[in-house]
């Protein structure tokens, strides 16, 4: 049985199509990555799976249950970690967990809550108000809350957005441990390619609500990851016989299999005196995205500054 199944799912907001005929599935036990720039439709997709939004058309199943028809049954079996940190600051960690337990009807909640706090190294803070928690601690508490009712699947929307490098690594470790030790299927969204690369068994890349490509990180890298040479020239260049995937004024991006071996001949061909700058992006998930769409993730969406600031502000309060 598939943990999550999306079939030709479309979501429209008025004239705007946020998700456009999206199909993919998540197998039980895996960490699956939904990757794309901001505005690609990742959060909308997550919201449809949780039942917060209804798809305009298409079909979504969670553990074989139709989300639109039996929303409540699906909600019982899903855990959810938001991209913003959503906790009640005025309450303690345990009080937050208590409310969560009551909402999900968890029987032996105190024991479970204490185990989870221990699992995440937060047992010393169980009676502290969340107000004083660092962003990393808040994220861990949120994940603990998502796990409280023993869901089979957890949806994580941008779990590391707004975190510093150290906390991000810590959250990655937590995600891997939750998946391996607690046997929870995880669907996460991210716009960090390295995150998807290091965490996920399989990923689907989406852009503007449409699926671009799907596969394991290794598959995608070997099939689509080309080295990308970026040239900035002093004069317009004629690049016959080269695979130019993007050009803008004096800027060119060329897709090659192995940059190291072709770079000398490329430079000789256009003439070193015509070049201002040469840079090489080695094959990575980043270059998969570039070679498929011509744009880097930042260019396709950019980091949503407003949203990021909002998250940071909230986290500081």
């Amino acid at each position, binding site marked *: 049985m598939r943990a999550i199944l999306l079939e030709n799912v479309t979501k429209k907001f008025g004239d705007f199509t946020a998700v456009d005929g999206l199909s993919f599935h998540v197998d039980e036990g895996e960490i699956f990555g939904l990757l794309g720039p901001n505005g690609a439709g990742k959060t909308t997709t997550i919201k449809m799976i*949780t*039942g*917060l939004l209804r798809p305009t058309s298409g079909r979504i199943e969670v553990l074989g249950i139709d989300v639109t028809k039996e929303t*409540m049954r699906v*909600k*019982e079996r*899903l855990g*959810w970690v*938001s991209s*913003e940190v*959503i906790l*009640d600051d*005025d*309450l303690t960690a345990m009080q937050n967990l*208590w*409310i*969560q337990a*009551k*909402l*999900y*009807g968890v029987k032996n909640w105190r024991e479970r809550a204490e185990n989870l706090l221990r699992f995440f190294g937060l047992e010393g803070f169980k009676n502290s108000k969340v107000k004083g928690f660092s962003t990393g601690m808040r994220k861990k508490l949120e994940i603990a809350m998502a796990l409280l009712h023993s869901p089979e699947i957890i949806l994580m929307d941008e779990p590391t957005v707004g975190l510093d490098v150290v906390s991000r690594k810590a959250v990655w470790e937590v995600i891997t441990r939750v998946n391996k030790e607690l046997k929870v299927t995880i669907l996460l969204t991210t716009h960090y390619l390295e995150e998807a690369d290091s965490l996920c068994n399989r990923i689907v890349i989406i852009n503007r609500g449409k699926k671009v490509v799907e596969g394991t990180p290794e598959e995608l890298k070997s099939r689509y990851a080309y080295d990308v040479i970026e040239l900035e020239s002093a004069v317009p260049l004629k690049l016959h016989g080269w695979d130019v995937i993007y050009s803008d004024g004096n800027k060119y991006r060329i897709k090659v299999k192995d940059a190291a071996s072709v770079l000398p001949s490329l430079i000789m061909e256009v003439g070193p005196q015509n070049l201002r700058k040469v840079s090489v992006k080695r094959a990575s998930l980043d270059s998969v995205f570039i070679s498929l769409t011509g744009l880097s993730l930042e260019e396709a969406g950019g980091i949503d500054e407003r949203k990021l600031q909002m998250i940071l502000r*909230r986290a500081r309060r």
Partner: protein
Amino acid sequence: MSLRSMDQLLALYYREVTKVYLSIFTLVVTIVQPLIWIVFFGSSLSGLPSFFLESYFHTNNYLSFLLPGELSVSSISMGMMASMSLVQDKRLGYLKRVMVSPTRNYVIFLAKVLGGATRGLIQVPILLVAGYLMGAQIAFSAYLFLWVTAVFLVSMGFSSIYFMFNTTSADWQRPGLIMNLITMPLMFSSTALFPKEFFPWWLKLISDVNPLTYLAELGRLALIQGAFDWTSFIALMGFAAFFLALGAVVAEYKLTPE
């Protein structure tokens, strides 16, 4: 309502109510605000000749007349807190957390409305004691408790109205605007502050369908005379029940997480 929903309601209601007690400032202001009302407004007319008070307010003590009216006004405006708290939860994302869980929307609605009405209720005992100390007549009888019940129910009814205005919106300006829009005209078109004998005919008409009039009059009957009017009580229960039911249905189908 299932046992599960009761549990969810209890947790969400607990969260609403702790907010009041956690903040000393909120608690103090909640209590002081109506006290200022009765001290200032109650004193403003207290020096009138007693024959005038007798003939106009049917009591020689304006405070006795005002106290039930002010308590009624105050507890319906506290119902605004239901919609403020709803907007806050939408803005901070908390409502998403609740709506992702298997909690029915009407449970969320009830928790907010009960929370709002409870805030209003906190004022009742304090004000009764303060009014008593200041010389208002208070007849202690079972009717007093029935009247307080009515205040609580009507407050829930108004909370439902405030809530409905923010079902699909997260606009923080709305709760205050709506409260002023509803409370002011209701207060002045009711007999909460003045008797209706000398109202113009059209204001009398409005006053006669204004739930606040019935709540204030019922309070006067209970507090000053130790009597009761069951018809008014049942009408007020009907008012509360209607808007509670309407609010629950609207929340169930229309509530948006942000």
